[in-house]
C-alpha cells in the first residue's frame, strides 16, 4: 500500500475530498498546516509596527491507497487541487510496510 500526502490550498480541500470519494476512496485524514514556499506571505500592521507572516495556511491530506491505485489517485488529487497559481502545493507518496484497521485488526489492503 501507499500513503499519499498532499499539501493543498484550504479552499481546494473539499474538491479533493469529493474527487476521492467519487473514485471510491472514502477514507482520509486532514491536518491544518502552515506552508512556506514560493508563495509570499502577508504583512500585518499593528499600531504602525509591521509583522511579517511568512506562512500560509494549507491543508494536508493523508490518504492510504492500494498499490494499484497509486497513479490514478495521484492524478486525481493533483487535478482536483489545481488552481494553476503559485501556492497550489505539493503531493508526495511513500511506500507502507503495513496498514491495519483498528476496529477489526484487519491488515493489508483489507484494512482500507
Amino acid at each position, binding site marked *: 500500500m501507499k500513503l499519499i500526502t498532499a499539501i493543498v490550498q484550504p479552499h481546494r480541500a473539499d474538491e479533493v475530498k469529493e474527487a476521492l470519494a467519487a473514485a471510491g476512496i472514502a477514507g482520509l485524514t486532514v491536518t491544518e498546516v502552515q506552508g512556506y514556499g514560493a508563495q509570499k506571505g502577508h504583512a500585518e500592521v*499593528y*499600531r*504602525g509596527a509591521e509583522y511579517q507572516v511568512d506562512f500560509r495556511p494549507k491543508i494536508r491530506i493523508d490518504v492510504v491507497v492500494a498499490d494499484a491505485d497509486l497513479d490514478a489517485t495521484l492524478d486525481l488529487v493533483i487535478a482536483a487541487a489545481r488552481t494553476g497559481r503559485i501556492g497550489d502545493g505539493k503531493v508526495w507518496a511513500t511506500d507502507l510496510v503495513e496498514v491495519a484497521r483498528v476496529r477489526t485488526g484487519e491488515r493489508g489492503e483489507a484494512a482500507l
Partner: protein
Amino acid sequence: MPAADVAWMLAAFAVVLIMFPGLSLFYGGMAGTKNALNMMMMCMSTLATVSVVYVLFGHGIVVGDSIGGIIGNPSGFWGFLGIYEDPGEPMVSDPFWFAFYILFAAITVAIVASAAVGRMKFSAWLVFSLVWVTLVYLPLGHWVFGGGWMREHLDFHDYAGGTAVHMASGMGALALAFVLGPRRNTQMRPHSLPLVLVGVAMLWMGWIGFNAGTAGGANFLAQYVTLTTLLAGSTGMIGFCLVERLRDGRATTLGMCSGVIAGLVGITPAADGVDALGAMALGLAAGAVVAWACTWKTKLGIDETLDAFAVHGIGGIVGSLCVVLFGYAGSPAGIEGILFGGDWSILLAEIAAIGATCGYALVMTFVIAKVLDKLIGLRASDEDEYDGMDLSQHAETAYDAA
C-alpha cells in the same frame, strides 16, 4: 439636588468599576496567548493592593491636611474610621467618595502594568505597584486633587485626571519598560482582537462614569461632559485610523480601538472646556498624534509594549494642550482658547503642570524600578519568559481547546 447626585454617582461607580476588567481585557487581548493571564492579573490585582493602601494611609496622603504642599497627612484617614455618619438626608457622602477615589488610584496603577507585559515577576509587580502608588500616585494626587502645591499655585486646567491619572501612568510605564528592558521576543501580535474590543466596550462605558462622575452629581456639567466624551471617543477613532490608512494603507481594528481610547484620554482633562466641535477636533488630534507616537518607542529602543506612554502620556498631553488652544469660553470651565483670543498665561501654567507631572512620574518611577530591581529583581528568568508568564508565574494557560 443631593439625592439625585447620589443616584447618578452610584451608577457611575458601577460602570467605572468595570473599567478594571475592561483594561485587563484590553491589554490581555493585545498580549500574546502565553502572557494574557499574567497581564490580566497585573491589572486586576491593583484593586486589591490599592484598596489596602487607601484604607490604611493612601486616602490621607491625597486629601489629608497638607504637609507643606507635598503630601497630605498619611494618618488622616487611617482605617476609614469615623466616616460613617449618616447625614440624615441623601447626599454624596464620605463612604462613597472614599470608594470612588480608590478606583481612580487603582486604574492609574493598572495602566502602568501594561509596560511590564511578558517579563516581570508577578511578586515583583505586586511590590512595585504598592511602592509606585505610594510614592508616585498619592503625592501627585495630593498636588492635583488635594491641597498640594500644583493646585494652590498653578492655575492649570485638568478636568478629570489628565495629569495625575494619564500622564503619570504613561510616563510611569515608559520608565518601567526602560528599566525592565525589552522582551526577548518582541515580535508578537495581539492574540485576540475581539477581546481587545470587549475591553474597549467596558472602558468606554466606564469613561462616561469616570468623566460625568467627576462632575460630582446629576448636574449640567455631567451632561455637558457626556457629550464631549462621546464625540472625542468617536473622532479619536477617525484620527487614529486616518493615520493608519495614510501610513500603512489600511485602517485596523486595533487602530480603531486605540483611537477610541486616545480620544477618551485626550478629552479627560478637557471635557468641561471644549464645545462639540472642539471635542471633535480634540479627539481627531489625540487619535492622530497617538497613532504617530506609537512608533516612537521603536526609535527610543524602549519596549514599552502596549503603548501606555503614547496613548495615556502623549494622549493626555495633547488633550491638555487642546483645551488651552481652543477652549470654549461658554463652556462650564469657561476657558477661552488661545486661538479664540484667550490669554497666553494659561499655556504656561498648563506646560508647567504637564512638565511637573511627567518629570516627577518619570524620574520617580525610574528610581523605584531601579532600586527594586537591585533589591528583589524585577525580571523573570529567560526560561520563564520563554515558557510564557502565564505558565511560569501562575501555572495556568489561558485556553484549553481539548
